[in-house]
């Protein structure tokens, strides 16, 4: 049985932990709100970009649509680039470990089929994990989530686009946590290159534009913008998912700390009572001995 003093010390230390985890929960909640606002803010741009792509495609004939753009080219898969999006910090449940596990599975999958794999790591957790185990890392981006900028997405795209058009890699896919809701995040694997344009519904009623430069050049440029946008969405989603995961993890931790404290308080009271009882019975028996 722990002594009274020991129990008191444990209660104090768990109360400290509870304060910290609760503060972290509040911070994560605030960051989650901001991350969700970012996702919403990007929607009109994405929709408009898709509408313009749709307008453009509706004006192109089948021959022009079957483009031989370098980003649409499918090759035999010998070199794969996987973009692994984790977080910079821990204490967010299985957020990082899920991404790392799925990335590893994908790497093994490609290696079994005889392709070699190179990684682009976003987030310190993944970078450290794969670096320590000697994986081939082409590039890594660390500490980008604190101040998330669209330019970062553009930089990442630049990096793998350039490798793809140089034919150093034949496929690019991204592994990240998809933000479904504040309580649900799932790991997704998505192919970025070669682009498989889900051709938006052409708007047949749309009247033609004047184009400058030609339709094809514009289409190619829009594909590039579309890719940047996809990468940007991945970063925003992963950021929101990380904050949501951390919020849930910290809420659990706070809850557990509370339960533990309740239990310890009970123990403390019991120990105190025992002590008092012992003292009283000592006094009583002492008095009895004197009287005796």
């Amino acid at each position, binding site marked *: 049985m722990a002594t009274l003093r020991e129990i008191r010390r444990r209660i104090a230390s768990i109360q400290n932990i509870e304060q910290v985890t609760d503060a972290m929960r509040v911070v994560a909640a605030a960051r989650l709100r901001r991350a969700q606002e970012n996702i919403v803010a990007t929607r009109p741009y994405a929709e*408009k970009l898709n509408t313009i792509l749709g307008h453009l495609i509706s004006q192109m004939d089948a021959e022009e649509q079957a483009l031989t753009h370098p980003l649409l080219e499918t090759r035999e898969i010998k070199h794969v680039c996987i973009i692994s999006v984790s977080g910079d910090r821990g204490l967010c449940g299985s957020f990082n470990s899920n991404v790392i596990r799925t990335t590893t599975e994908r790497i093994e999958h490609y290696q079994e089929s005889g392709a070699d794999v190179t990684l682009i790591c976003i987030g310190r957790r993944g970078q450290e994990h794969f670096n320590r185990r000697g994986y081939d890392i082409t590039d890594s981006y660390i500490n980008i989530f604190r101040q998330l900028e669209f330019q970062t997405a553009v930089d990442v795209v630049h990096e793998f686009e350039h490798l793809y058009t140089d034919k150093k890699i034949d496929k690019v896919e991204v592994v990240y946590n998809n933000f479904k809701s504040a309580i649900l995040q799932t790991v997704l694997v998505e192919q970025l290159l070669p682009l498989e344009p889900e051709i938006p519904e052409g708007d047949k009623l749309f009247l033609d534009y004047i184009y400058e430069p030609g339709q094809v050049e514009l289409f190619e440029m829009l594909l590039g913008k579309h890719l940047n946008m996809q990468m*940007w969405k991945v970063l925003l989603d992963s950021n929101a998912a990380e904050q949501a995961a951390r919020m849930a993890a910290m809420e659990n931790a706070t809850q557990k700390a509370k339960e533990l404290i309740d239990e310890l308080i009970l123990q403390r009271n019991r120990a105190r009572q025992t002590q008092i009882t012992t003292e009283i019975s000592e006094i009583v028996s002492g008095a009895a001995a004197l009287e005796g």
Partner: protein
Amino acid sequence: MLNRSFHLEIRTPEQLIYEGDVTSINAPGVEGNFQILAGHIPFLTALEVGEIRIRESETPQLMATSGGVFEVLRTGVTVLVEAAEWASEIDVERAESALDRAQAQLSANAPDLNRPRAEAALARAQNRIKVASNL
């Protein structure tokens, strides 16, 4: 000559930069700068790194942009740019340090240098400095 203004919307992936009625807009097209007035026919073009100038009334408002898409429809003009900054909000010091960084990278010419990326960064920084000085 009634109704000489038209609706304009300028967006980046991060936010809405401008929405309102203007009488003209000048933008840096890939085939040269151009100006759009009310009543233009539908037009789609790509934008270069450069300066956008909009006019609500007499005084023009300036912003630096890093390129994007420019669409004119009967209902108005939409500009989708990946980055845009009002001239008055440009941090010249930051732009200059970005310029120095890009120049240093290009002149060092390391073997793993991503040249297009460094050149794009250089062009963006030069443009921001230029637009800020045009204010």
